[in-house]
């Protein structure tokens, strides 16, 4: 899979790393059970801090896309379907759009909750 980080972008580097993995799961190039490179290795390859990579991995873990295990590193979970990854991408877009409009975190959550209340 391909990791890309652009220090010139406004998006935090950790999020860019998470987005790379999410994108790869979404387009089917990375499957469940596949192991991501060790954080230390990836950090050295990208020329970024290990903590930056770990932040990205942590993000993916919270989205349920990967599991972080001591000794085994980061493994793509069985629940990480392309659809699930695309959902994460959609959420990213929603947040980016809302931020552009100057909405606060609280207001963004309210937008989603309002949408859910209608169902």
């Amino acid at each position, binding site marked *: 899979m391909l990791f890309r980080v652009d220090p*010139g972008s406004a998006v935090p580097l950790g999020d860019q790393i998470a987005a790379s993995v999410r994108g790869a799961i979404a387009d089917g190039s990375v499957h469940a059970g596949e192991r991501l490179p060790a954080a230390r*290795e990836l950090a050295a390859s*990208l020329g970024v801090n290990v903590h930056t990579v770990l932040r990205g991995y942590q993000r993916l873990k919270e989205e349920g896309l990967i599991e972080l295990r001591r000794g085994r590193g980061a493994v793509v979970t069985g629940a990480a379907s392309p659809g699930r990854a695309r959902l994460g991408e959609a959420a990213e877009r929603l947040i980016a759009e809302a931020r552009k409009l100057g909405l606060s975190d609280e207001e963004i959550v309210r937008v989603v909750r309002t949408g859910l209340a209608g169902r």
Partner: protein
Amino acid sequence: MKSAKSGPRSVLPSTRPLRPWIAVFPFLIALLAIAGVLNGVSGRLPDPLATHFGPDGKPDGYSSIRGFLTASLAALLLIAVGSGVLAQLRRTAPVTRWVISAGWGAAVMFALPVCLTLLANAHARDADAVRFPMWQVAAWLGAAVLAGGLGWLLAGPDTRTATAPSDGAPRLALAEGESAVWSHTVSSPLLALLGALMLGAGVLLGFLDGWLTGAILLVSALAVIAVGSVRVTVDRRGLRLASTLLGVRFRCVPFDRVTEAVGRQVQIAAEFGGWGYRVRPDRTGLVLRSGEGLVLRLTSGREFVVTVDDAATGAALFNAYLDRARTRQNSPQDSRRSPRQGG
């Protein structure tokens, strides 16, 4: 080979027009030598000839003059034709020097004993009295090695000219300052299992048979396990191969050794004759299966091959970094510039 215009190699044996003649020359000399000796000893040869000798130099095999000469000449011609053809083939172009060298060695290897046998026979009253002293065997082998060396020198280095520009090779678009990493694992459960079995056998033999056998088997087991599962990475430093099971990096190919990267289908049986980490005259590779592979064309004219999924993306990223490295090399004073497209 550090010019910006490096591209896919095109190794042409025809760039050295004398080479086919150099390849065939020792065989002509060999034929002339046999003919000359034959002419010199004609009429003094016993029939049948003593043609095979034991370690004591006494004959233990005989054949008729006609049979001996026919077999010798046939063998010599066969090798001559083989050597000439191999030296002409495009496939063998990167190793033509070796082919020519081997041809020179083989010509002496086959022709000299024929001459020596004829001379030894000519000096004897009958075939049983023929002697073939051991020092002649040593001289014969030494002469073959010398001839091989002479052929190697005369053949000259294999010419490699980078001609076609690599502009056509696909590249990943990298923004200025952007860094990217392509990483994939490739594994062979069979090799890993083999390694584990060897490891077990090594420990067992270490107890039963002695530490040396055990140690040899253990080291081989580790080598097999190392290539059983490998993480292939292309990053700003080049191509890196690391064993996921042992956690050690065992191969790194930096950008300045590569002219171009491509993704292509690799047939491991035809190209490497098997699987594992394989070294051949014109290519080296970690090949665990047939199919998609990342191929680096090296400045030395050789290829480095890894069979791995999604190799095209890896090759595209490698080429993008190659462009960056070349731009920096050409203009070290403003190395922060964005990579220029093409060469």
